[in-house]
C-alpha cells in the first residue's frame, strides 16, 4: 500500500527476545529520560508575578476613552449596543447641562453604561461600531470575581483615568491600542 507520508511505521509484533524480557534495560532507558526532564528548564509562568505577553491584537477588557482634555468621548448613540452580538451592553443617555462642558465632549452623554462581562464574547464589534473612538478593547482581561454581579461593569469600572489629573494612570491604561487623538 502506498503511504501518504513517509512517517508511518509498521507495528513490530515479533516475540520478545531474552534481552527484552529482562525489562531492566528498557526501564533504565525510561528512567534516564525522566531524569533528563528533571533538569530541564520549566516552561511554567508564575501567574500573578509574571504574565504571559499578549499579542498586539489581543481583545481584552473594554475601556471608555476620554479626549486629551479629559472629557468623555461617549455620546450614548447606542451603536455599540446594536452591534454587540451577545447583547452585553446597556446604556442610558442624558443631556449635558450648562457648566458640564469640561466633563463631556458632546451635548449628549451616557449617564449609565454597563457591560456584562459574562455575556461579552470580546469580539471587538463595539470598537468597530463606535463613531467617536470612545470604546476600545485593552490588553488585559476581566479579573475573577466571587459573584455574578461583580462581572457587570459600570462606568466607573470602564472609564479611563483622567489624563489631566492622573496622567501616569492614564498612560498606563491607554496602552498601545487606543487611537491617540
Amino acid at each position, binding site marked *: 500500500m502506498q503511504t501518504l507520508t513517509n512517517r508511518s511505521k509498521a507495528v513490530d509484533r515479533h516475540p520478545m527476545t531474552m534481552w527484552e524480557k529482562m525489562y531492566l534495560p528498557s*526501564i533504565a532507558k*525510561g*528512567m534516564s*529520560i*525522566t*531524569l533528563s*526532564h528533571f533538569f530541564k528548564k*520549566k516552561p*511554567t509562568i*508564575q501567574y500573578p508575578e509574571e504574565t504571559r505577553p499578549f499579542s498586539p491584537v489581543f481583545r481584552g477588557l473594554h475601556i471608555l476613552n476620554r479626549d486629551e482634555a479629559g472629557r468623555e468621548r461617549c455620546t450614548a448613540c447606542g451603536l455599540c449596543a446594536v452591534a454587540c452580538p451577545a447583547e452585553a451592553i446597556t446604556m442610558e443617555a442624558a443631556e449635558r447641562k450648562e457648566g458640564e462642558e469640561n466633563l463631556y465632549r458632546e451635548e449628549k452623554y451616557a449617564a449609565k453604561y454597563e457591560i456584562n462581562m459574562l455575556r461579552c464574547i470580546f469580539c471587538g464589534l463595539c470598537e468597530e461600531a463606535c463613531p467617536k473612538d470612545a470604546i476600545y478593547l485593552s490588553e488585559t482581561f476581566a479579573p475573577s470575581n466571587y459573584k455574578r454581579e461583580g462581572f457587570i461593569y459600570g462606568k466607573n469600572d470602564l472609564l479611563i483615568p483622567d489624563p489631566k489629573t492622573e496622567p501616569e494612570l492614564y498612560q498606563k491604561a491607554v496602552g498601545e491600542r487606543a487611537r491617540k487623538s
Partner: protein
Amino acid sequence: MIQLAIDLAFILEKAILIGGIITVSLVVAMYSTWAERKVAGFMQDRLGPNRAGPFGLLQPLADGLKLFMKEEIIPNASNKFLFILGPGLAMMTAMMTSAVIPWGKQIEIFGRTVDLQIADINIGILYIFAVLSMGVYGIMIGGWASNNKFSLLAALRGASQMISYELAMGLAIIALLMLTGSLSLKTIVEQQSAAGGWWNIFYQPLGFLIFIVCAFAECNRTPFDLPEAENELNFGYHQEYSSMKLGFYLFAEYINMFMSSVLMATLYFGGYDIPFVNDASLIESMGMNTVAILQGLSLFAKAAFFIFFFMWVRWTIPRFRYDQLMHLGWKVMIPLALINMLITGVIVLIKENGWPF
C-alpha cells in the same frame, strides 16, 4: 536481685532515643510527601508546590491541617472498631521497624556511652520481617472493615501481593545472611564498615536487585501499587476513609518507604558507614560524638537517595497488571532468589573448606 534493679538512666536514654527516632521518621515522612510532589513536578516539566513558604516547604503542614479539618466519616455498615483500628495498625507497624536499625555507632553524653540503636537484638532481621508481615493487617483490616467491594478487593490484592513478594525478599536476605553469618543489624553494619570490609552490594548485586524490587512491592509503591490502583479500584483500601484516618494510611506508606530505604542502606550499602574513610581512625582523630553525627548523616544521605529512587521509579514506570505481578513474583523473583542462594552457598562452602578445583 541485682539483675532486676532498674537502671533509670537507661530507661530515660532509650525513651529519648525512641522519641527522637519517631520524630525524625515522622518529619522525614512529612517531607517525603513534599519531595514526592516536587519530584513528580520536575519530572513532568512542572515546578511542583511552591506557594506555601519558600520552595513550598510549608506545604506538608498545610496538607496536614487540611486533613485534620476534614469531616470524620465512619460508614454506617462498617465494622467501627476495626475501621478505626486499621489505620492505627498501619501506622504502628510502619513505625516499629525503626527499633532495630542502627542509626550511628555510639555517642557519649554525661559520661555515658549510648548506642544509637533502640534495641540491638540478635534476631534483628527476623524482627523486621515479622513487623513487615504485620503491615499487611493494616491494609486487610481497613479494607475489610470498610464494607466496600473495591476496598475488599484492594485489601485481598494487597495481602496476596505482600505474601508473594515476602518470599522472594526472604530468600534474597538468606543469601546475604550466609555471607554475614549474623542476624543482628549492628553486626552486619560493623562487618561492612570494618577496615578492608566491602559493602554487601559488591557481594550480592543480584540479591540487592531482588530485594529492591520486593521492597517496592512491600511498600505498595508504583509499579506495584495495585492495592490503591486509582483507575480500577477508585482509591483502593482507603476509599471509605476520610480526615486523619486517611492521613494515617498515606503517612504510613511514606514511613514504610523511609524505613525500607534505611533498611536497604543498612543491609547492602554499609549502613552508617561513611564511604571512602576508615571510621575507626576517624573516631580517634575527630572524637566519638562528631563521627556519630557524621555517620547518622551518611545513613540519611543513603536513605534520601533511595527515597528519591522510589519516587523516580514511581514517575517513570506504569503499573503492572495483576497477573503480571504474580508472574513476576512467583516465576521470576523466587527462582532468581533461589539461584542466587545456590551460588552464594557454593561460594561460601568453597571459601570455608578451601576446595581445590
